[in-house]
């Protein structure tokens, strides 16, 4: 039979299908952070259960951690408690934790690939919706709730419903200045935030093959904003080259054994998907979101749409309320929208490649008057690499703040946040109301677009910049 990659991974991880119960799927890797795990550990204690496979877990602290003055105690008592409890839980259960002082610390979905902890064909979970990131390696990776975190710790399994499969094909090559982030946003713009509901998306096509591993992570990261359970990309030479030599990657003879398995994973010729969506890469311009949902997005050369331009009542209403929240009027050119804040970072766009691209744009510019621009590396590794390449100096000379790693303004839980009415060009993944601070307004863009906006004080078409 011709199987999709998702079906192959599903079949090979099916532990039992029992009457009246959802199928039990085996979990190879369990990623953890401080915010969604504490109650799961307490649940284990209350029921006298143990972590079944401590070595399957890698933990970090990222969501509520400060991105400056790291040497000081954390000021927010709740954040401090979460970090302390995480450290205790990991110690009590013998888990591998990259705590705040660890040189490997950073955002979970950035540090995990850096150490080669996720491999093709694995089932990977984390109490975090952006777990989809690891689909870039051809692993079935998805977010779970806190009670499921407990479930996986205790049993190494999860009751799961099988998803439908969707093939998203990006044909041809991407124009210069368009990035993985723009592909991600363009797909969501096309299929909507519910378009992928019930599906696991496999991304394919020439433009996907061309992406670097970092770019593939950016793309899979936002599968969740397209409503999908997970995103997947078939492993290839780039995947193997990225993994080889990393701490948790197979070594020596095991490498060949692993490769043989990995090479069996890509979807078979003629495998049937439940849905197919195709986009021409050539049509994907640099994207800017204008609303309060990632599907409210348009090419940078476009204008803010008017509610009447939507053919369905729900979308008209959504547009109206988004425009009111965002303080925008229809038909304003995207490039005429002024900004107050710029954030480069997050598990979507906080990798070394993102800072390289942004630094190239920022080089020799100055952050426009009245604008705060912060660059928050996704991990200490990214930070150190960037510093070795002198990128930090470029940002600092251009008037940016160069921070320590963390989720930071992606969800504004650590004190880095917008004030009411402030408008931000952000490389993160969600532009929901209040996501970056109460009353804050978020526009999702790629790192290059963010850097250009910082210099200009408004959005600019990166294709005509400089």
């Amino acid at each position, binding site marked *: 039979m011709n199987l999709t990659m998702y079906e192959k991974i599903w079949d090979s991880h099916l532990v039992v299908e029992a009457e009246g119960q959802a199928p039990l799927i*085996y979990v*190879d890797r369990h990623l953890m952070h401080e915010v969604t795990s504490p109650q799961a550990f*307490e649940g284990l204690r209350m029921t006298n259960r143990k972590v079944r496979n401590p070595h399957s877990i890698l933990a970090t602290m990222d969501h509520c951690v400060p991105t400056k003055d790291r040497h000081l105690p954390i000021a927010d008592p709740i954040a401090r408690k*979460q970090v302390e409890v995480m450290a205790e839980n990991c110690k009590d259960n013998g888990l591998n934790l990259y705590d705040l002082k660890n040189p490997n610390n950073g955002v979970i979905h950035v540090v995990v690939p850096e150490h080669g902890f996720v491999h093709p064909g694995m089932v990977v979970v984390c109490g975090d919706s952006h777990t989809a990131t690891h689909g870039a390696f051809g692993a079935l990776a998805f977010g779970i709730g806190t009670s499921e975190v*407990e479930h996986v710790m205790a*049993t190494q399994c999860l009751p799961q419903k099988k998803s439908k499969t969707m093939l998203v094909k990006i044909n041809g090559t991407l124009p210069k200045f368009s990035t993985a982030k723009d592909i991600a946003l363009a797909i969501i713009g096309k299929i909507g935030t519910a378009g992928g509901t019930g599906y696991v998306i496999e991304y394919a096509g020439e433009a996907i093959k061309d992406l670097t591993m970092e770019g593939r992570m950016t793309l899979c990261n936002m599968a969740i904003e397209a409503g999908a359970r997970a995103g997947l990309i078939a492993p290839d030479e780039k995947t193997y080259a990225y993994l080889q030599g990393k701490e948790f990657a197979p070594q020596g003879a095991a490498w060949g054994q692993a490769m043989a398995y990995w090479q069996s994973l890509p979807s078979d010729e003629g495998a049937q998907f439940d849905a197919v969506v195709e986009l021409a890469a050539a049509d994907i311009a640099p994207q800017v979101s204008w609303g309060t949902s990632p599907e409210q997005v348009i090419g940078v050369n476009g204008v803010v749409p008017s509610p009447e331009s939507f053919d369905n009542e729900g979308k008209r209403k959504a547009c109206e309320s988004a425009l009111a929240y965002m303080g925008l009027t229809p038909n304003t050119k995207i490039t005429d929208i002024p900004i107050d804040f710029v954030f480069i970072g997050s598990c979507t766009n906080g990798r070394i490649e993102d800072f390289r691209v942004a630094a190239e744009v920022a080089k020799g510019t100055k952050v426009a008057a009245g604008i705060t621009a912060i660059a928050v590396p996704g991990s200490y590794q990214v930070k150190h690499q960037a510093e070795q390449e002198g990128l930090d100096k470029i940002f600092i000379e251009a008037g940016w703040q160069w921070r320590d790693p963390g989720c930071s303004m992606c969800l504004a839980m650590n004190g880095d946040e917008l004030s009411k009415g402030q408008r931000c060009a952000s490389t993160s993944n969600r532009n929901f109301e209040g996501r970056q601070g109460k009353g804050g307004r978020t526009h999702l863009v790629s790192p290059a677009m963010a850097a250009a906006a910082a210099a200009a004080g408004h959005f600019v078409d990166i294709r005509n910049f400089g």
Partner: protein
Amino acid sequence: MEPYKKHESIAALMNRSNVDTDQIIPKQFLKKVERSGFGAHLFHDWRFNDDGSDNPEFELNKPTFKGAKILVVGDNFGCGSSREHAPWAIADYGFNTIISTSYADIFYNNCFKNGILPIKVSSQQLESLMAEINANEGVRFVVDLENQQVITPGGNGFTFDIDPFRKGNLLSGLDDIGLTLKHVDKISAYEERHKKAFPWLWAQ
């Protein structure tokens, strides 16, 4: 999880519909790192005055309802955000049974994971149960899950439907994890195969 036993208990009445999870457990309590102790915050905004004292107007603060294990409420209980803290708070407060005409889906499922029996009744049945409690506050109902029966002194007893699989789990006190662990042999066998196929994943 405690096995669910046949019991007789005070039935507390909250004649309110569309009670959402934000009212069950307001969001300021979600930042806690504990899982237990949410009962102290159940219905917080209704239950307490601004100065933290008990609000005597709130139903559950009536002395006649103290110690109730059965909660009788209006339609569509548990709607809104899917937070698991809602059933945690209800169970931690001491309720193990809810009687209503309807529940939000996720909340309904979460009840079973926390040893709570959510019973569905018709509108007429609910009305007569409410009338019986109103006429005799502190009245005790018997809930017999085994026989799917509620018995009341006023004769408003009824039988109810429940998924047999879920019923079994409540009776035996099996939570989701316990259910999965019933298959522990299969999990171990899977892991043996896994170790052979991917030995490098098991190197500590």
